[in-house]
């Protein structure tokens, strides 16, 4: 029998970024004993890297804004593949989630009348992003972290123990979600019983018994070579969900942020915030041309400026001008940059120029974009107030994730919940900037709430942890020490990253993705033989060897789904199928674990599922002409429903203004 450190909680939250902390706060506020598990130190989560802001239609800067406009923008950004109910809940609840942060001590930048300032961002009709300079993610994490501490202080006053009802297990890594084995071996009906993992510091194993587990582990970017993501983004939650029997949807949709640093090589991929463009920065190729005007797709043509003059006027007068095309959704900008570089109009280091130095006074740049100024000065020795930056696309975000119920964030496995980047559906085929932080808060809270309710209902019938699963999990985790002379996990990781970058990147081709699947299959077999040196105490080689399992599983999901979807939409571009196809909008690709992986074959089974139809009153927020671009004919609302062919947004907003819910 494996020796493990054991704990018991009502709710376990895996991940301590924005979604995880928000979920934990909610579960604890509903009286549940809550454990937070994080791979890193508390307060270091990847959320700190979010720069631009939190999208919420508070209407502080433009009072025309409301949830309906935000909903519309989100659906357009996701090319209508989003789960409409998630997009609706998100748009409705985001303002409350932001305001609540202020009561926990957050200090956002202010408007002149003292309210929360909101900035422009790609794809958002109105200035909508609550922000703190360009370090909004840090403010979000710190505020949630400090709220957790304040709850612990409350517990200390009441119970004499800071950790009486909420405890952070930092530098703990979960390798398996455990399930009950009490209903006759029918794996599909089992419910969650807890989690198994190891402590980084000592290498010792732990089990936390709990009826409810919330996955909030973020994304998968570390499977790609050029990425803005930190080392933690190894798709742990995605893989844990698969292994526990849940489905992943939309895994073919990976967002390449258009502006990552391209030089020096060691920082390639690090993010350059979209706020640079929101605040006036422009993209130029090596000929000095603002090329984005050549890349406005038809679906967006009416909404974007056709000339530089109009685009420039928009920054001052948004009522009478259209926005510059630099502010198109991220997928459009990333593809445009990719095309310019391929056409030989790139910069010396293979990117394009992003220039704010000729657009704003130096002092203003330093005030509005302090961390970008700092980042380029320190890492690239470039002064962005005096010269342009060189930027190019970088793997940034995965739209795909655990298939969840929109209202409760629960997966199909009883007791397993997911929120934030690890959950799928909310962003459809492409996420708008700013919609991630709001997603974390809205669905983090919902996951925490429903996990607490689920745990409450399980009282009196608590699941029992199965010792066999603990033993199996321990054996799996120790395997790399047994593989004497096994392959170096760092080398395997580099090969994986190179393969995904080259074969399943921004522009995808059938043959390359088939090649990727072959390589992944071979890598999986080699990874099972990965070996490590040394002992279990804080051993990064061992940690990476274990993370490889997760990265390989999610990479296969991405490649398999991308091969299947024969169209181009949002974060999935097929060179051999360049058009968006309305029929494909009705299809979701769901990945699950294959029953018995055959050597040389994949570990993942792919299934087509119907995308639930959008509720009629929400469809009515769009004009018929716009819907035609996305929907098949038989999905179009009846002509009698009286949708106007075009819906001037300003009119629509006035109509809904009074009914706006906040």
């Amino acid at each position, binding site marked *: 029998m494996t020796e493990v450190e054991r704990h018991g909680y009502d709710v376990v939250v895996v991940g301590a970024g924005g979604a995880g902390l928000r979920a934990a706060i909610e579960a604890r506020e509903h009286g549940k004993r809550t454990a937070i598990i994080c791979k890193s*130190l508390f307060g270091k989560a990847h959320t700190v890297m979010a720069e631009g802001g939190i999208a919420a239609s508070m209407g502080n800067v433009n009072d025309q804004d409301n949830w309906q406009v935000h909903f519309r923008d989100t659906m357009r950004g996701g090319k209508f593949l989003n789960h409409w109910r998630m997009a609706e809940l998100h748009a409705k609840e985001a303002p409350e989630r932001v*305001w609540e942060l*202020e009561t926990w*001590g957050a*200090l956002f930048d202010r408007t002149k009348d003292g309210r929360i300032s909101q900035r422009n961002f790609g794809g958002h009709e109105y200035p909508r992003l609550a922000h703190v300079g360009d370090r909004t993610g840090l403010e979000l994490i710190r505020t949630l972290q400090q709220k957790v501490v304040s709850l*612990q202080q409350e517990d200390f006053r009441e119970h004499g123990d800071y950790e009486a009802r909420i405890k952070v297990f930092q530098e703990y890594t979960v390798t398996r979600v455990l399930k009950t084995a009490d209903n006759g071996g029918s794996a599909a009906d089992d419910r969650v019983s807890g989690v198994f993992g190891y402590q980084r510091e000592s290498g010792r194993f732990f089990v936390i018994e709990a009826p409810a587990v919330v996955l909030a582990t973020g994304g998968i970017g570390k499977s790609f070579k050029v990425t803005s993501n930190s080392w933690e983004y190894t798709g742990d939650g995605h893989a844990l969900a698969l292994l526990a029997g849940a489905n992943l949807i939309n895994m073919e949709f990976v967002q390449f942020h258009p502006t990552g640093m391209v030089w020096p090589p060691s920082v390639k991929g690090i993010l350059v915030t979209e706020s640079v463009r929101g605040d006036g920065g422009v993209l130029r190729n090596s000929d000095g041309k603002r090329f984005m005007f050549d890349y406005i797709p038809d679906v967006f043509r009416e909404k974007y400026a056709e000339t530089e003059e109009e685009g420039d006027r928009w920054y001052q007068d948004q009522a009478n001008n259209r926005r510059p095309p630099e502010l198109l959704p991220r997928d459009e900008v990333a593809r445009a940059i990719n095309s310019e570089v391929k056409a030989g109009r790139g910069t010396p280091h293979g990117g394009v120029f992003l220039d704010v130095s000729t657009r704003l006074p130096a002092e203003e740049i330093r005030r509005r974009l302090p961390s970008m100024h*700092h980042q380029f000065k320190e890492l690239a*020795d470039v002064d962005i107030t005096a010269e342009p930056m060189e930027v190019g696309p970088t793997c940034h975000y995965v739209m795909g994730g655990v298939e969840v119920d929109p209202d409760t964030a629960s997966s199909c496995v009883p007791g397993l919940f997911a929120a934030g980047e690890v959950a799928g559906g909310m962003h459809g085929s492409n996420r708008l900037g700013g919609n991630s932080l709001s997603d974390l808060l809205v669905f983090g809270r919902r996951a925490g709430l429903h996990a607490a309710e689920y745990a409450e209902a399980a009282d009196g019938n608590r699941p029992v942890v199965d010792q066999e699963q603990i033993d199996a999990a321990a054996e799996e985790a120790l395997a790399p020490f047994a593989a004497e002379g096994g392959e*170096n*996990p760092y080398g395997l990781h580099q090969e994986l990253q190179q393969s995904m970058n080259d074969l399943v990147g921004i522009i995808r081709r059938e043959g390359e993705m088939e090649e990727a699947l072959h390589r992944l299959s071979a890598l999986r077999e080699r990874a099972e033989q990965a070996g490590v040196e040394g002992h279990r105490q804080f051993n990064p080689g061992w940690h990476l060897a274990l993370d490889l399992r997760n990265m390989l599983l999610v990479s296969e999901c991405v490649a398999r789904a991308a091969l299947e979807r024969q169209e181009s939409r949002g974060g999935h571009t097929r060179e051999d199928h360049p058009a968006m196809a309305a029929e494909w909008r009705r299809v979701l690709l769901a990945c699950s674990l294959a029953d018995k992986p055959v050597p040389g074959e994949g570990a993942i089974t792919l299934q087509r599922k119907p995308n639930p139809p959008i509720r009629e009153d929400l469809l009515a927020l769009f004009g018929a002409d716009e819907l035609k671009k996305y929907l098949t004919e038989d999905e179009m609302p009846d002509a009698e429903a009286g949708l106007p062919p075009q819906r001037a947004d300003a009119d629509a907003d006035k109509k809904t203004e009074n009914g706006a819910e906040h």
Partner: protein
Amino acid sequence: MSYEATFRVWRGDADGGELTDFQVEVNDGEVVLDVVHRIQATQAPDLAVRWNCKAGKCGSCSAEINGRPRLMCMTRMSTLPAGETVTITPMRTFPVLRDLVTNVGFNYQKAREIPAFIPPQGVKPGEYRMQQEDVNRSQEFRKCIECFLCQDTCHVVRDHEENKPAFAGPRFLMRIAELDMHPLDAAADSGLDRKKTAQEEHGLGYCNITKCCTEVCPEGIKITDNALIPLKERAVDRKYDPLVWLGNKIGLRRG
């Protein structure tokens, strides 16, 4: 362009250890953390090091480079003396766990001891109104990425384990200043005097403003000038102001 460098990295655990030399390739534009990663990938796969974002935003990869507390991800190789050995040791103020990883639990313990933001009574969410000029100062302190380099360098605790129980350190004294300067913090209404507790409970008096903390802050926060000195001045005002003293004596205002 690349060259071969000598890296001297401390390896060991709580029971002791030693500096170990590595000959390692360095490429144009790299930072110290890149080179440490190369050592991991090619020579010492179990070399323990904390890091997350590699962009100076998370504050995980703190260490001492040639004796100076720094973030490894923000130290470009080109800023170090060419051709000389680069020595990397763990932060000295905190107990070593393994190699470059230290137990920074001290900081999390101190964080818990600072009373949280107290929201103003009767102001609903969405009704908070603050002017930018009034939040600027606290916002400067909230830039802190909790790398704990200021805690590491502060001589009050650097070689004085005995001072740790009584001293919150620059990061958390700054946290008190941040809350104290928050325009809507309602501590005073609830009977909490943050300045007084800074002095009496969190060891502000130990600080003799040598500004070491400010010098190592990778975010360039003026910890001493903008947080600690104002906090000291105000704490002193309250402590020695005869009017305040008299008021306290005759119960005109709460301490």
